[in-house]
């Protein structure tokens, strides 16, 4: 089957999009669309669920059944969609604050249940839509409108959090490593269980400006220079890894899927 072009999955009537010039979110959106195409998902049997924030506007641009929910709740809505109609492919788009702050509880429990959802988190380390406040993924010491003297909070490593909470597939890419990101999403979709793909994105408008990181190209170069492939990282010393983050497949550990387990109960009760 010929692959569909990513732009064939866009709703042209919704253009122009809201993202700022230089924003990385369009690259992650492109990676998701290419992954959907590569995975061969049926466009009419695929649901995109998103929360609230810059990243979550992506659902509106995608020509599927799309659900733009409330702040932080995307995974809870998606859980209902998937449980009621497990034959649907459900992809969940969230931002870093959306997923890890207001949606943090839903996130760890979706991981724990290992329900068959593919979550893609657009991590630009900032609340963009509300103009640049720090999130739980903003690195300690960085600046934001609500951290004018630098944030004193320690950041989450979202992938480590997902692994600890029970997600069966976890990977991280960046907007610089867009092909890797696509491949990770394909694998996440293929995983029968909860998959988290973290996409490091750049927000030149707020995060970059507040932290003097330069323009979008400078921020993507920063991603290139500060990322280490997960396989290579296994041969590196803690000193060599200091200040770096791992990209690639970080966890692949198949586990019983929630709805499959539930359906055993249905089968037994109706036998």
């Amino acid at each position, binding site marked *: 089957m010929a692959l569909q072009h990513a732009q064939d999955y866009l709703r042209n009537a919704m253009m122009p999009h809201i993202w700022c010039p230089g924003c990385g979110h369009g690259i992650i959106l492109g990676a998701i669309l290419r992954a959907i195409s590569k995975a061969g998902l049926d466009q009419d049997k695929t649901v995109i669920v998103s929360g609230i924030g810059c990243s979550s506007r992506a659902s509106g641009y995608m020509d599927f059944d799309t659900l*733009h929910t*409330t702040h932080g709740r995307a995974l*809870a809505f998606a*859980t*209902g*969609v998937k449980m009621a*109609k497990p034959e649907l492919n459900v992809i969940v788009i969230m931002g870093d604050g959306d997923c890890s702050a207001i949606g943090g509880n839903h996130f760890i429990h979706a991981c724990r249940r290992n329900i068959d959802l593919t979550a893609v988190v657009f991590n630009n380390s900032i609340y963009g839509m509300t103009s640049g406040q720090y999130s739980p993924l903003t690195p300690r010491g960085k600046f934001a409108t609500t951290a004018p003297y630098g944030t004193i909070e320690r950041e989450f490593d979202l992938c480590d959090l997902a692994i600890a909470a029970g997600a069966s597939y976890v990977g991280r890419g960046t907007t610089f490593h867009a092909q890797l990101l696509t491949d990770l999403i394909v694998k996440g979709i293929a995983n029968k269980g909860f998959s988290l793909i973290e996409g490091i994105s750049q927000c030149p408008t707020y995060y970059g400006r507040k932290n003097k990181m330069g323009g979008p190209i400078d921020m993507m170069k920063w991603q290139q220079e500060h990322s280490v492939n997960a396989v290579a990282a296994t041969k590196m010393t803690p000193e060599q890894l200091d200040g770096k983050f791992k990209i690639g497949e970080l966890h692949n550990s198949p586990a019983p899927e929630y709805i499959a387990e*539930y359906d055993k109960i249905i089968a037994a009760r109706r036998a």
Partner: protein
Amino acid sequence: MAVERSARLMQGNEACVEGAIAAGCRFYAGYPITPSTEIAELMAASLPCVGGRFIQMEDEIASMAAIIGASLTGTKSMTATSGPGFSLKQENIGYAALTEVPCVIVNVQRSGPSTGLPTSPAQGDVMQSRWGTHGDHPIIVLSPSSVSETYRLTFESFNLAEKYRNPVILLMDEVVGHMRERVDLHSLSMSVVDRVKPTNKREDYLPYDAAPDGVSPMANFGDGYRCHVTGLIHNKKGYPTSKAEEVDFLIRRLHNKIDHNLDDVLKYEEYMVDDADIIVLAFGSVARSAHNAVRRARQNGVKAGLFRPITIWPFPEAAVTALAQKAKHIIVPEMNLGQLRLEVERVAGSRCQVSGINSIIGELIAPDQILRRIMEV
């Protein structure tokens, strides 16, 4: 083989579950909280037996979100809660109202505010059930007074939710939820209403296209219509808009679809009101005490009557106006500090006197308290 008897002793919460499943509910998401927990427990046991699914979510917010997600696939869905849990549902009740996703929320009221008097009866959520979520929004709220009525109104809640594409709240109280009465399910057979589905092609389907007081057909996720559902104000296509005329049309239509169909939505019961000088207006478990008090007042030669709103919201304004024109006094006993009385006063205006009997001590208002007031006025 055991013969299933249609009549049995049943708890209010149990009747709620029976009514929901009979109405076609096949998905339940909830979080434990007394005095509604039996509903979750019975749903957990019952749903897999009919091919449905149950999930205990991480909190009340998630439960409300999950039933909306499930309903979007065409699956009738419900959650139940009490007190503090109802506060947490509010965020996504507003989402369901704006996006017009049918769903049923059961609130077995308990004493508040906050953790309150766990888990004594109260009726303190009258106003929250109407205005709990932010922004102008339509809502339908029904309140049962007996176990068999809990069955019927749960069923009816699903029907109304499907018909009007709106969240429907079943406002129970602890007394009705935990009370046991004989219920004959066979005598309660009702017709199931399902949402209208689109018949046109994807290219021609507008998910929010309806007359100024109408409801549009609703496509299921997965049926190939590729709809966008958003909590942003949207146009007929479902896409975000801030155009004044589109915003105005949508929000007014959402209200009109309920307000222009009051004959269908409003339910109430009247007992000896025709010649009554004194009307007791009561709902939920308190209406049982009120019924007893009115009957005894009549035995004492006092012309008393009972008006029992079954639909609390929208409030049965026309019927109460008519009563206020005839009666001298309306007494509103309720287990709160006068929430429904506010509405009665607004409607009655200067037509008659209105007074309340208000209890917040976590005990049902007794018939004697109401009878005493009837005799006083």
